[in-house]
Every structure is written in C-alpha cells, then in structure tokens.
C-alpha cells in the first residue's frame, strides 16, 4: 500500500497513530486530578498542534532539503487565512472551497515572491523573503484595509452575502464553519472512568490533512525531485557544471512549501474564522524556523515533533505559576523551597519565551540535528558502544 519502503511505512504508521489517537495520548491524566493541567487533549490545542505541524512540514521541504532559509514564510500563512475567510464571507461556510482557495492563492503568492527572491541565495535570500513578508504585513495593516480589515482583523458578519449558504442562521447568529454540514466545532466527549476524551470534528479534519501532507512530503523526500533539492543544498555549483539548472527545482520547492503554509493558514481560519495581520509578522516566521530546527531540519518527522513540542510547552509552561511550583517543591525545607521557586520563576508563566530561547540556543549549539538527532544519540548510547567504528564514520546529515 502507498508505495513506500518498509522504513517509511513504519514512520507513516507512527505518525498516523499519533495523530488519530491524540485525544487519548495527550490526555493521560484523569480530569480533576492535580496533573490534569498537563493534559493537552482539548480540541483547540490539538488543532494548533496539527496545523503548525503542517506549516513546519512545508517549511522543511524548503529549508531542510534545499538549505534556503526563508524568514518570511508567515506571509503565506496570512494570505491563506485571509483567502479562506473571504471564501466564508462570499461563498459558503463549507471548509473545502475555503481551503482550496487558500492553497491556490498562497501558491500564486509564493510563485511571485519565490521567483524574485530565489535570484539570490544565502543571507540575501533570507533578507529578501523577510522584506517581502514585512511588506505584506505592513500593507495588510494600512492600505489593504478594505481587504484585510486592518488592525481589527477580518471577521465574519451577518450581512456577508454567502451565495451558497445563508447570511445568518435561523436564530440570527453567524453560521459556523462546517464540512458538508458537519460542524467543525462539534465535539464528541467520551467518558471512561475518571477520564474525559474529546473527539473534535475540526481536529480530525486537520489531522487527516496532516497525514496527507506528511505522506506527500515523504514522497517528495524519496523522489528524484527530492534528490535534486538535496543536490542544491550540498553543492549548487557542481549542479550547474553538470548542466542542470537548479532554479526550477528550488522554485518548485518554494511554491510547494508556500502552499503548505497557505493550507495551514486556511485550516486555521476554518477552525476559527478570523484572520489578522499579526499572523504575517516576522516573529511568526521566526516561530516556524524555531519549530523546524528544534525538531530537526531535513528530517521527516522532526518538524512535526518540533511544532508539537513548542505548542505544547507554550500552553503548559505559561499555565504554571508560583503556587503550583510551591506545591511541587513543598517536600523541601521552607528556605530551600522558596529559593528553588525563586530560581525557576523567571522561566515559567510569562517567561516561557526565555525558556524557549535558551532551549533553542542549546539545540543549535549542541544538537544541530534537533530532537531527532537527540533521540538517535540516546538510542546509540543505550544500545551500547558496540559499533564504535560506525560512530567515527563522517555523518553528513541525520537520517530520519
């Protein structure tokens, strides 16, 4: 099935299991217990996991394979969001046309930006993409207000036309996004003993799209096209001398990854029909870079892990406060307890970005391959030093 090698098949199955059973996996603690705050199995957060997973997988196709570091990828996310919301406003509340349009529009946008930006490489490419993204951000805030609704952000209103749907529901509210009638926000709750598991329609839509996106990226990684992209990364000059023009390949990679970003943006708007310019700001582009690097650039599963990791800790860390810390360390003598809490305090709650920054630096310094490389090292360390000779072999990039 799926025409995959054995190794990739395992990988695909792992991701599928992770995504499909996420409501169970992310909810290990019974509701109401002290640890329940570490549960991440609620729809809103799970949706964000998979949406940013898609975003990072797409970014990885560009950065991981070709080595072109784009600092403006959030622009495509923003464009995707805007087009999806417009589709909801004008056509219908069905998510399929909205998602399709966001992918197409961001693809066109990426084609335009990529065509210009890819004329330079290295840091110049980064700056060019950054400049384009900042331009879109600034324009969305100011002149393009008729399209983007400026600072307020684009929202649904009661007097939107919605040709194929209704402007307002029977009871006078704004209709909700749906997939042929299946409301995205509808959630089925399963109660097993003390646990509550939530199955959300929107999450499963995103999850299935993530699986498709992951499968596609897997095929790209293994295809001759992916081989060409790797060649662009390792030595472009040699590629030129071989008589091959790397430009179309990199441009294709750029457009594909832009479409992934647009898809993520469209999904984001489908889950919550809002679009704001801040989604395009360069800090948002920086975030996807963080995710990809943290998980492991150039690896298949890395970006998904990185996205999940960052989003999970962003939510959980920022919830921890001093009183929780005190309850954790209450077994220590009073003085030491206060000292420990005082030491940890800057890193939690609002200080989560500090933790993220430090973690990111540590990863870049010691683990250039990200979490995936960390996992491999641990595996090697556990399996013992049997293959000493293999260790010394030069490793150019981590396998998946």
């Amino acid at each position, binding site marked *: 099935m799926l025409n995959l090698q054995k190794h990739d098949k395992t990988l695909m199955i792992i991701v599928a299991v992770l995504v499909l059973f996420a409501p169970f996996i992310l909810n290990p603690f019974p509701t109401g217990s002290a640890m329940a705050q570490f549960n991440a199995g609620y729809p809103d957060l799970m949706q964000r996991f998979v949406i940013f997973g898609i975003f990072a997988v797409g970014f990885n196709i560009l950065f991981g394979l070709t*080595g072109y570091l784009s600092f403006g990828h959030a622009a495509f996310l923003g464009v995707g969001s805007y087009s999806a919301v417009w589709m909801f406003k004008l056509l219908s509340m069905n998510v399929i046309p909205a998602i399709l349009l966001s992918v197409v529009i961001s693809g066109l946008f990426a084609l335009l930006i990529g065509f210009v930006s890819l004329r330079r490489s*290295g*840091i110049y490419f980064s*700056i060019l993409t*950054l400049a384009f993204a900042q*331009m879109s951000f600034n324009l969305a805030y100011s002149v393009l207000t008729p399209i983007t609704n400026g600072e307020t952000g684009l929202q649904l209103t009661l007097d939107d036309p919605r040709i194929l749907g209704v402007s307002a529901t029977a009871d006078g509210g704004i209709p909700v996004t749906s997939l042929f009638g299946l409301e995205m926000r509808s959630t089925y709750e399963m109660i097993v003993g003390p646990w509550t598991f939530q199955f959300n329609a929107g999450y499963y839509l995103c999850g299935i799209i993530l699986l498709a996106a992951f499968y596609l990226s897997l095929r790209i990684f293994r295809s001759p096209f992916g081989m060409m992209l790797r060649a662009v990364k390792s030595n472009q000059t040699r590629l030129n001398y071989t008589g091959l023009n790397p430009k179309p390949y990199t441009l294709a990679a750029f457009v594909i990854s832009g479409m992934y970003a647009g898809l993520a943006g469209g999904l984001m708007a489908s889950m919550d029909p809002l679009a704001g310019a801040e989604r395009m700001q360069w800090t948002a582009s920086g975030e996807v870079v963080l995710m990809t690097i943290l998980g492991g650039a150039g690896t298949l599963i890395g970006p998904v892990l990185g996205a999940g990791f960052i989003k999970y800790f962003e939510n959980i860390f920022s919830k921890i406060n001093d009183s929780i810390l005190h309850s954790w360390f209450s077994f220590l003598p009073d003085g030491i307890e206060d000292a420990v809490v005082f030491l940890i305090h800057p890193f939690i709650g609002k200080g989560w970005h500090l933790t*993220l920054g430090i973690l990111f630096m540590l990863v*870049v310094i010691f683990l250039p391959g990200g979490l995936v490389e960390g996992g491999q090292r641990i595996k090697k360390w556990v399996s013992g030093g049997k293959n000493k000779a293999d260790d010394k072999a030069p490793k150019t990039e981590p396998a998946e």
Partner: protein
Amino acid sequence: MDAIILQILNGLDKGSAYALIALGLTLIFGTLGVVNFAHGALFMIGAFCAVTLSKILNLSFETVDETKLDFLGNPAKIKTPYVESWFGPEVGATIIDWAVPLAILFSIPIMIAIGFIMERGLIKHFYKRPHADQILVTFGLAIVLQEIIKYFYGANPIPTGAPEVFKGSYDFGVLLGFDPNAIIYPYWRLVYFGFSALIIGGVFAFLQFTTFGMVVRAGMADRETVGLLGINIDKRFTIMFGIAAAVAGLAGVMYAPINSPNYHMGMDFLVLSFVVVVVGGMGSLPGAVLAGFLLGILESFASMNEVKSLIPGIDQIIIYLVAIIILLTRPRGLMGRKGVMED
C-alpha cells in the same frame, strides 16, 4: 522647499540610528564573518543602560516632614534622592537631569564586557559553522536577552527624558529665511545626529589612523596572511566585537529619549538594520553608513502626505521595496566589496 528640508531633517535621526546599528553589524561581519542577529538586542540593552542609570540616580530615601501634612492628615513623607543629599540639591538635580548623557560613560564598559562575553563564550564556536547556524544561534540569543530585559523591566515602555536644556525645539525656518514655525526640529534629535556623526567619525578614524585599526583592516582583507605574520588577529577581532557592541549600545543610550525603551525595540530595529546592511553592501563600512542615512531620509520622504496620496501605503514599504530593487539590480549592494558573501 521647507517641507523637503523638514523631511531631510526628520530622516536624519532615524537614519543615524540605522547607520550606527548597521555600522556595528558590518564591523562584526567584516572582521569575524559572523551574521549577528543579536545586534538589535545590544541596541536595546544600551537603551536600558540609560533607563538603569536614571533609576539608580533616582534612588531615594524617605524623610518625614512634620510641618506638612498629606491628604490623609499624616505627616508627609518626602523622598530625597541620595545624589541630592550628597552633592546638594542643585548639583544633584542636575546630575539626575543629565542621566542619559551620563549613561554614555556608564554603558561603554558594560557594552564592551557584554560584547567580549558574547564573542568568547558563544560566537567563537560558530566561525566554522554555516551562516544559517550563526543566524539561528544569535536569533536565539536575541530572544533570551530580550526576555531577560522584559523580566526585569516589564513589558511597558519606560519614558526616559532628555536633559531639560535639550527639551523643546529649534526653529530652523528662521535660520534659513522661511517663515517662523515652518521647520521645527527638537534639540535632542540634533544632538543625536551630531553624536552619531561623532561616533561614526571616531570609528573610521580609529580604523584608518591607528596601528591597531590598520591591523584590523589587514585582517579583514586577508585574515590568514595577517595571522602568518605573527599577529594575534583573533584577539584584535574580539576587541572589535566589543567596540561594535559598544557602538550599538551607545546608539541605544542616546535613542532612549526619542522613543521610550521597550524590550522589543531591538528586534524592530534589527530587521531594518539588516536591510540597511544588505543595501549598503555586506562588509562595507561606508556603505552601511550611507545606506543608513539614505533609507532613513527616504522613509521620511515617503511619509509626506503628498507622496502618500500619490502612492498609498508607500511609507510602510519603501525601505523593503528599495532593498528588493537594490538586491536584484546590484547584488553587492551600493558599495559592497567583491567576493563577500557571494554565492
């Protein structure tokens, strides 16, 4: 005509800030070959040096004045800064008033120390790694520095005033023969421009006329040969890193009265400064300064109402637009050297 002169003047102070940050970035890039994304954070730390010094100077003790009552009827508590009690009220008040200029002296050793620690502790290990890794690790460092500042100073901007003498504006219009009030320009911005001209001149003179500067320039041109001549070029480059950090810090110190420092001001300036560096040409010091002023002035021209009504939104994107055009037509930037970062 007066409107044009006003816009040029308006562009100068922003341009000075761009030029100073871009100069520091280029110094680091030209000497060490490192793309430093944490440079904006250094600018921000400089601004917070000014905030810190003015806070230190304002440290006060409380005395109870029996003769006056506060609104609750209790004896009023009067705060007296320590400085005022040590040097007498008048001198003390003047010292507090001059906190920002004094912060220049205060910030130089701090910034140089931070620069040394950064270079020796972190960036040294990244010379042999690809540029992408350097960008990423310094980007992480920038986040960390910014969050540390946020932790200690909070997320709100902290107003930091210029000395009383420099408050108010100068009427340029009268000097040039226009109507009064046609061209009004705050004194402090004039000071800022003069100060940055001084710093830029100082850095160039240092590189051009001292033996140390000569060695550094030689190292920028051909690091290996200088090393082979028995000169410890690494040590000199470390010192240059410290100087670059100090330049960014000073730019920040003096910028504090223009815009109240907040923790993300560094990032805001960094993005633009990178654009400036690239427009000026990677590794070219005069290019960085030229492009800094050029883009500053262009930006202020684009924000004129006449221009805005002609091309709506141009003021928001002019810098990026210029950067894109220059990068596409002159890959080396305005004054870039051959063979620097060309691939």
